[in-house]
């Protein structure tokens, strides 16, 4: 989707991630207030609230019923979009492009610690043929890694190098969940989970949330806001659900989402200064780089470890993973870096949902100087 009506991100907030001991209401109020304060905007000025969370994690049907107040959506245009928060950003962008909204608060959150993510993740698989196999997101990550990571890379040494690189990034990220860089011995002792993946290769189940203030240029100017980044392009695509149907190109929808985002932004890969991928496990950084065209086939892990391209400077999902809104967190991390780091003006951020990365969305962001 070409974003020909300029859409700007004028405020953002990322909560600390980890295991929280307050309530979901504390969390949602914190992120909404944080993003509005960062933008310098009062709640009454927003036209719409678009948000994402999982009912299953909240333990409530229609959980949006309970959070509209705290997210600032009282008597506003509102919709809840499932299942990754990056789709909330997509829908907010649609609304702004029509002119029916000029400023939208986009929010996503998860209180993963209050539920059992593996169990509810299993419920996303086809109920007749796949669910009884007890598939979940960890097994899904292992299936993807088994399919896409060359055997020569499937060693504890490589696994540790990938983890160390990501955790070192997380150590420098104040809002990350996992900030500790483990020793090799600690990594070796990490229990096997699925396939060749250990627990430490997989993202944590984080409590946390993120909110963005998205608006038009005119709105920003009228209200004295300082746009941080502009949304230059958006891409989204969907694969088939059944794994047997995906043998030709198991991550075809990821590839298409990235291609669409770049094409609609009229942006070449060379112009992208850094990427924020929503990686299902550390090893998948390599295949994601290759399939999105940032690395040659078979070179993804090597390129990542060499630092040929800045990948997941936030630490990625490996360091903070609020289930259901990890993609929106990747976007927010990219915006934060564009706002603060001196070395980047263009970023690609990615999110996904569904079993084995079935639905993918990518956004190209540009720093507003």
């Amino acid at each position, binding site marked *: 989707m070409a974003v020909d009506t300029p859409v700007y991100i004028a405020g953002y907030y990322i909560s600390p991630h980890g295991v929280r001991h307050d309530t979901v209401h504390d969390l949602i109020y914190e992120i909404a207030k944080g993003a509005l304060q960062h933008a310098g905007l009062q709640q009454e000025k927003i036209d719409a609230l678009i948000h994402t969370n999982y009912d299953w994690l909240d333990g409530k*049907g229609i959980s*949006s019923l309970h959070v*509209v107040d705290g997210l600032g*959506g009282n008597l506003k245009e509102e919709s809840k979009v499932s299942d990754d928060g990056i789709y909330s950003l997509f829908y907010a962008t649609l609304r702004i492009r*029509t002119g029916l909204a000029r400023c939208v608060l986009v929010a996503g959150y998860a209180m993963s610690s209050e539920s059992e993510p593996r169990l509810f993740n299993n419920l996303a698989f086809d109920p007749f043929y796949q669910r009884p196999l007890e598939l979940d997101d960890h097994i899904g990550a292992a299936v993807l890694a088994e399919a896409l990571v060359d055997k020569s890379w499937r060693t504890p040494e490589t696994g540790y190098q990938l983890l160390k690189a990501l955790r070192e990034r997380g150590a420098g990220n104040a809002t990350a969940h996992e900030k500790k860089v483990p020793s090799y011995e600690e990594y070796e002792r990490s229990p096997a989970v699925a396939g060749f993946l250990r627990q430490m290769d997989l993202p944590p189940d984080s409590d946390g949330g993120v909110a963005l203030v998205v608006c038009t240029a005119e709105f920003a100017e009228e209200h004295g806001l300082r746009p941080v980044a502009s949304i230059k392009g958006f891409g989204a695509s969907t694969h088939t659900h059944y794994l047997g149907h995906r043998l030709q190109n198991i991550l075809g929808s990821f590839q298409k989402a990235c291609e669409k985002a770049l094409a609609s932004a009229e942006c070449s890969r060379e112009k992208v200064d850094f990427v924020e991928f929503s990686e299902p496990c550390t090893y998948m950084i390599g295949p994601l780089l290759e399939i999105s065209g940032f690395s040659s086939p078979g070179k993804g892990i090597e390129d990542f470890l060499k630092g040929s391209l800045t990948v997941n400077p936030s630490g990625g999902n490996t360091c903070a993973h609020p289930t259901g809104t990890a993609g929106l967190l990747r976007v927010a991390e990219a915006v934060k870096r564009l706002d603060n780091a001196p070395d980047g003006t263009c970023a690609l951020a990615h999110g996904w949902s569904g079993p084995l990365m079935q639905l993918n969305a990518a956004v190209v962001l540009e720093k507003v100087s």
Partner: protein
Amino acid sequence: MRKVAIIGVYQTKHVLRRTDVNLFGLVNEAARGALEDAGIEPRDVEAVVVGNAPETFEGINQPEAWLASAVFAQGKPLFRIHTGGTVGGSTGIGGFYLVASGAADIALAVTFEKLSEGEPQYSLSACYDPFWGRDFAAGAPALAALQATEYMARHPSVKEEHFDLVAFKNRNNAVDNPRAHLRQKLSLEDIRNSPYVVSPLRIHHCCPTSDGAAAIVFAEAGRAKNLCKRPAWIKGVSTTAEGAWYPGVDIVTVKALRQAAKKVYSTAGITDPWKDIDLVELYDAFASQELIWLEAMGFAEDGKAPHLIEEGITLRDGKLPVNVSGGVISSNPIGASGMIRQVEAAQQVMQKAGPIQIDGVKTALAHAWGGWVQFHALMLMSAEEG
């Protein structure tokens, strides 16, 4: 903003339990039906939005993933909207935004529910706050009964007999609608003598639980005119929310719906809904709500809506036909019910409503309700491109 029109619609036959299809088959039937109605192929659809009410109804998490092929979404953007009972309406509005924004020239919106595969009232009780509400949660009828009781207490001229009249109208309208779930011809006595579910609501004042799905094809102006002789042009939309815990929440004088109506009328240039709107399809999950919602939409002053049914104004041959389809109290696959209102309204505007067609309908308003009394979606459509 690009002009957008509805060029194809479909709804399944709503029944207590569809035993011939699973959820995938039910959803696919609606998607295929809408494309056939629009005269297009799956490849013509550029983006898809789906919606259903709580996933706990069918016990399937992220249902759009399993259903992606059923709605022809492979290789396309697909997202799901989830706004409780409003979702049928807000998903249709999502389809509108896909086209109005330029993200797609043709978009498909699909909603569904197969309530026979779960226990809806248990699921609805799980919507209540686990600490403060769930101990006394009793599904949806208790909430609607509270609203109806407050409505009568505030306006003593409102009587249970008015709810009987609304139910009599809508349930008998459904007799002529081949897609409706409950098509039993009822007398006023049948309704008056039916048992209470939660006082003051009797069983014939209440919606059934249905299996069903609906789908709409939206197109930008050029494609709409090429593909459809008489499209239904979208003139205004709103998905307005009110906080459930916000101070001053009023379940009778519903602020969210009032604001939504104000916005839609303003967008469409309507100053007098009586003058400019020919037909209304609203989300009457309970008979009392038809009166409450009509007041909020500006068709009557507070407490005065009963005269609309007393005087026959909302009958199918009245000045403002309301729910000529039979409404939600005759068919309620919850996640689809809001979109069914849009489908019925569009069919009236497109003159494709068959045995329930009302002559001369040019402009129709479709409504959906969800959450506590807090989520309201409105879509106004017209036969005129304007």
